[in-house]
């Protein structure tokens, strides 16, 4: 049981980070559940039907999720704000409906027979993604992402290629979600399209908003607390969505930037800013 708790916490941390990466350019994505599904199904089909080893299937699934995101993102990232959010919601519905209706993916019956994910695989994935995000936060690219989020017109006037930067974030976010999906499927053995309901995407966004959107630790904290809290406080189980709703309202009133709201200006690039 403890192992399951840890596993679902870890998956949610990866998903929260996948939302965070897209959010770095100021775009809120409700499609991360869909990219997780693509990763899960892609890896599952590779291992169960074609005998591809898991170690190969996982990176391949990440690439596929990423490619799907770039394909959707290229036209979609032209729209902004609430319209882009609606597009990502649409993507989530489309993917689920497609998985339910295509015989190749197993339809509503789902896909079975995947196995092989060990807890330490997930731990290693979190460590690797975490390390990359940490390095990113110290790199010049972080500043460019901040500029795009702050005011994309100004960023463009300084020479930032908006299409490229936004697609990069969207693609990277989808790769992380695809990684989570591939590991998830091979832990559960059996998945169905309704494992990737729109609620998954919504919950993940809420983890990020609760935890904080300004640094990589916020999503980690949000995902951990909101996954474990209902497990340990049994009475809360049935009230999970209600609890979420209340938490969001309270947070937005008290701490609109999330639990961990710090952003370290100029901590990065200390070689120049330090003097």
């Amino acid at each position, binding site marked *: 049981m403890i192992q399951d708790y840890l596993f679902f916490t870890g998956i949610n941390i990866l998903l929260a980070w996948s939302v965070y990466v897209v959010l770095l350019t100021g775009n809120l994505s409700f499609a991360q559940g869909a990219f997780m599904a693509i990763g899960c199904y892609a890896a599952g089909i590779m291992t169960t039907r074609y005998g591809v080893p898991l170690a190969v299937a996982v990176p391949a699934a990440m690439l596929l999720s990423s490619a799907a995101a770039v394909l959707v993102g290229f036209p979609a990232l032209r729209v902004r704000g609430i319209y882009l959010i609606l597009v990502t919601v649409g993507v989530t519905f489309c993917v689920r409906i497609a998985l339910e209706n295509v015989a190749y993916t197993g339809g509503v019956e789902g896909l079975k027979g995947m196995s092989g994910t060990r807890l330490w695989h997930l731990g290693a994935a979190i460590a690797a993604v975490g390390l990359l995000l940490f390095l990113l936060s110290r790199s*010049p690219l972080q500043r460019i992402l901040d500029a795009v989020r702050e005011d994309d017109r*100004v960023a463009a*006037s300084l020479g*930032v*290629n908006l299409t490229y930067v936004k697609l990069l974030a969207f693609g990277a976010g989808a790769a992380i979600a695809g990684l989570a999906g591939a590991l998830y499927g091979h832990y559960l053995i059996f998945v169905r399209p309704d494992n990737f309901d729109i609620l998954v995407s919504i919950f993940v966004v809420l983890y990020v908003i609760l935890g904080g959107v300004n640094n990589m630790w916020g999503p980690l904290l949000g995902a951990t607390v909101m996954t474990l809290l209902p497990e340990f406080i049994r009475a809360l189980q049935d009230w999970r969505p209600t609890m979420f709703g209340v938490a969001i309202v309270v947070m937005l009133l008290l701490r609109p930037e999330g639990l961990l709201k710090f952003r370290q*200006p100029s901590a990065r690039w200390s070689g*120049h*800013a330090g003097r």
Partner: protein
Amino acid sequence: MTAPVLETRSLSVAYGPIRALSGVSIRIAEGETVAVVGANGAGKTTLMKALSGLLPAQSGEIAFQGRSIKGRGPHDLARAGMLHVPEGRGTLGTLTVEENLRIAYDVRPARLGYDEATAAVFARFPRLADRRRQRASSMSGGEQQMLALARAIVNPPAMLLVDEPSLGLSPLMVKEAFNVLHEFRDRGTTMLVVEQNVRSALRLADRGYVLRQGEVIASGPAAELLADDQLLNRYLGTRTKEGA
């Protein structure tokens, strides 16, 4: 006559059926400061958007350093050396002063090292040096306009497009902003300044163009335009006493 850095030939731009610019031809030579002036709605902003790639041209030609730039986006032009200083203090508010400069430096190819480049900027703008670790949004409007101008020269471009530098500033800060632009000019920076504050802009410029309802109605040496009371009164509404 030297080859123009930036030139438009019979440029027309329309918003749907509404023509905002008709047959505008302007040219800016190397090292020259040119002002485009006009009242509200004369087409100044439209011209700026068309030049920086935010609006498509309906007809006509735009050339930068002898090559057509029609259809090229803002980031592309910035990298090619035509840097747009956006109107209304286009600073990145949640980033620090230093980060604002750093991005401007990083994104485009640079000749000087970063420390060298910023040392010159901070020497000219000591207030920005004091505030380098502060969020840009914590500064006054005037200081933010200074930051926008400083950001433009941290990595000097081939040409600057300065969009309404006086917008939303107090008279004192307008004067300060124009002082900076005068320095840029004296150093030989090629500039196109689009401005509503007609007198300040024409005093700064070598040559000027007067826009009215999307057309160039007068052009010539800035001093001559400035001396033409009739023109200024009739089309630019500067009858009131001159501003700062």
